[in-house]
């Protein structure tokens, strides 16, 4: 009976970083990347593997375990999804980090926000204003073919904001994403992260 569930288990694993831990310096320190990836993200992965226990609780009609695990998996699964995408959202400067988007995505941003700078300013403002833990996301709303930004709390995945939304770029504003390097200067972290944003990847998704 658990065979099918075990199959699901094998696909949940920590993806490798597409670059060395220190490749995003000085914007993001190697220390942060290492801990963020190998501790935080790894924990989300490990806890997402509790999924078979949730399925078991459902089949046994164990409601309280069911409910508890649902929130654990929503949180950790969301964390795994969000972080897996976010590693691809960044890239070292030598590989094009920070280079503005061109072509279709570039024009879409210009026409909808006025300019790339305007989008960045909006993202930074929302990121700075977020109280507690969450993400700021630039997404494509496929249903209406538009670029939009959203704020996510905790580790809620983007899908919770709309079924046709696909993330182009996500910036983690949990304290663990910047504290070791920037201390409480979240605004400074936000200003600097744009230097290593991978617009190429965002364009591909778009």
């Amino acid at each position, binding site marked *: 009976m658990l065979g099918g569930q075990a199959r699901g288990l094998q696909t949940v694993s920590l993806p490798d970083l597409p670059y060395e831990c220190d490749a995003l310096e000085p914007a993001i320190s190697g220390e942060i990347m290492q801990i963020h990836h190998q501790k935080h993200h790894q924990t989300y992965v490990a806890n997402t593997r509790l999924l078979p226990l949730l399925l078991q609780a459902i089949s046994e009609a164990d409601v309280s375990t069911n409910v508890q695990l649902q*929130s654990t998996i929503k*949180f950790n699964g969301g964390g795994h999804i969000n972080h897996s995408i976010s590693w691809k959202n960044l890239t070292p400067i030598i590989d094009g980090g920070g280079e503005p988007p061109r072509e279709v995505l570039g024009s879409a941003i210009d026409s909808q926000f006025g300019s790339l700078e305007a989008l960045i300013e909006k993202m930074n403002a929302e990121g700075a204003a977020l*109280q*507690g*833990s*969450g993400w700021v996301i630039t997404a494509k709303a496929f249903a209406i073919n538009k670029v939009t930004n959203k704020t996510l*709390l*905790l*580790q809620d995945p983007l899908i919770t904001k709309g079924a046709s939304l696909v993330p182009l770029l996500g910036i983690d504003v*949990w*304290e*663990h994403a910047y*504290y*070791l390097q920037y*201390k*409480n200067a979240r605004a400074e972290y936000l200003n600097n992260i744009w230097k290593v944003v991978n617009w190429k990847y965002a364009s591909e998704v778009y």
Partner: protein
Amino acid sequence: MGSCFYNSHLLVTQVNTCQLPPLCKQRRRQINGSQRAAKVVAYHGFKTPPYKLDALEPYISKRTLEIHWGALHCAYVEGLDKQLGKSDVLYGYTMDELVKATYNNGNPLPEFNNAAQVWNHDFFWESMQPGGGGMPIQGLLEQIEKDFGSFTKFRENFIEAALSLFGSGWVWLVLKREEKRLAVIKTSNAITPLVWDDIPIICLDMWEVSNYISPHLMLFLFHSSE
């Protein structure tokens, strides 16, 4: 300087910057709010913890306190001062009153986040003491044993709450006023049990910054005189 209205105590509105020690303190018996001995400072004063910054080592490092208190807590005070400076409406409130008023029955005003976080952090520093740990005594211990079964069970309860908190928040031992019993509760972001008129006894900051710089065990040190 404006005039004080209905409050019976004087409040001095000197603005404290984070470089200066708090200038003006006045003690008065509080008629509501927390049970601890009330210290009313100019409401935008930046209080220092009641011990040196290295006094909680090895559990909480001096570095953590320098950043957590010296930068982050300070930023909340400065943020609050800026907001309060813009409007007379909240003039003359004590910190307890300010937190409750800006909570606005669940529809928080913009000042709430800063006010509550200042309050929470002031309380957090006082929830710990050098050479602390050990056991609570007398009335508090009896109440803990009554409401949790034993101190060990309470401690387990508290740790479990801390470890199961998603995102940013706080864990509290509160005295629930209506039910007249102790409870362990978790709150998100800046929320504090003060807004429900319950009485906090101790709290633990579970925002990541609290244990990030110095990732030691979460050994919390009880203030034993409540």
